[in-house]
């Protein structure tokens, strides 16, 4: 699947420090992903997005739907941003302190796209 509005965004994420993988769950529930690290295979990132989709659904049930989510792990973090059309993007990043600025820039572009 290549003809979706976020292809360029996925490709661009490779240029940001600390980004290991990224993905988008479109408003029609289609999932597109891109991995830049062997330990983050694309098949797993797709599963991750499905899991995050369930988490987002549950958060709405608990009346805690956030426009941004951050899942912090020992060696990395998962950042999620949701658009008004309900599409959401995920960035898997390592704990490199330099990654933070790139995340903001990428999510700003995702929201506008």
């Amino acid at each position: 699947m290549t003809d979706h509005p976020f292809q360029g965004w996925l490709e661009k994420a490779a240029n940001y420090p600390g980004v290991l993988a990224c993905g988008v769950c479109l408003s029609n529930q289609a999932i597109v992903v891109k991995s830049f690290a062997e330990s983050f295979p694309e098949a797993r990132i797709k599963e991750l997005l499905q899991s995050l989709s369930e988490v987002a659904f549950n958060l709405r049930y608990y009346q805690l739907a956030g426009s941004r989510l951050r899942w912090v792990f020992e060696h990395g973090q998962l950042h999620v941003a949701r658009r008004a059309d309900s599409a959401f993007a995920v960035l898997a990043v390592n704990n490199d302190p330099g990654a933070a600025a790139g995340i903001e820039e990428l999510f700003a572009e995702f929201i506008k796209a």
Partner: protein
Amino acid sequence: MSATDPSPARPPPSRRILLVDDDPEFIALMKDHLVQKRDPSWIVHTAVNYSEALDCLKLNPVDLVVLDIQMPVMDGLQLLTLLKRTRPALPVVVLSGVVTQENRDYALQHGAALILQKTELATGIDTIYPALEATAEAPVEGFKGMLRQVGLIDLLQLECLGRKSSVMEIKGSNADGRIYISDGSIIHAEFDCLFGEKALARLLRLKGGEFRLAPFTQPGRQTIDGHWEALLMEAAQSSDEQEGEAPAVQAGGEAAGAGLESQAAAAQQERPDRRIEEIIVSSAANDILYQWKAPEAERRARLLNLLLMKSAGVCKMLPALGRADRFEIIEPRSRAICLLQPDRKIFVRLSILAPAD
């Protein structure tokens, strides 16, 4: 010798240690270093199982016990529990090849003074002895240790959950600090020239150091008046946010490091105020241990459990991420932080107040 005779300087006493490990090669290696290469040399007793260890303790005075976790019949954690019941003042170090989060939590809750991994031996066996010496020297009324596998936040949580009163004295590489805990509440912190929550945040950002848990004394003033769960999570979050500044200290040297203190203080002042709206602490079994302004505590506890299970799923899916620490739900004017530990889960919701509020 009469009371007026000048006393010759005494050599420092030898440490008496009991090593309990079912691996004879490891015992031989440790013994060799402690007997041959330490000055003064240590008196080393060894045991390959719990039975020999208990017999040895009956016959010999010992300053320190070092236990392996994985042993047959009675493992090191069971032996730790037994020893702390019968000899609470005897410092016990857990030294094992594999230290899981569960084992670490269990050992700390059951009185281990220190938890070390055998893998540290691979990077230099001598690095382990200062930690053992410090632990063996510990006074009865407190204990000393090195911050290695044991995080300062873990120790503080244990002190607070146990509703204890103590003063945690922390020695970092460049400055010293203290955290005062009264009846399970953090009431004061000081570090270098900082006080209160700023000092606590800086102390919790230390990557290593030495600590001593001393009996409680009243501080000159009380600078912290908040819920410890929220304080610790705020500090953890602040640590994440400020890690980006650390390379500037290294690159700029000490002068830049001194400047960072004021930058951090200024950044703190520029941040909008945050108000805690609700707190829930739940156990591994999802019992609510503590709640504050939480009308939907049961629902929050269910959410925490769901997030913990989802986290375990993500860890299996992407093992390179390591274990889960927390989940944050972020809105422009609010933030919910879910701390996800196997033995307890904490939910804190904060409002971020605009200056006009």
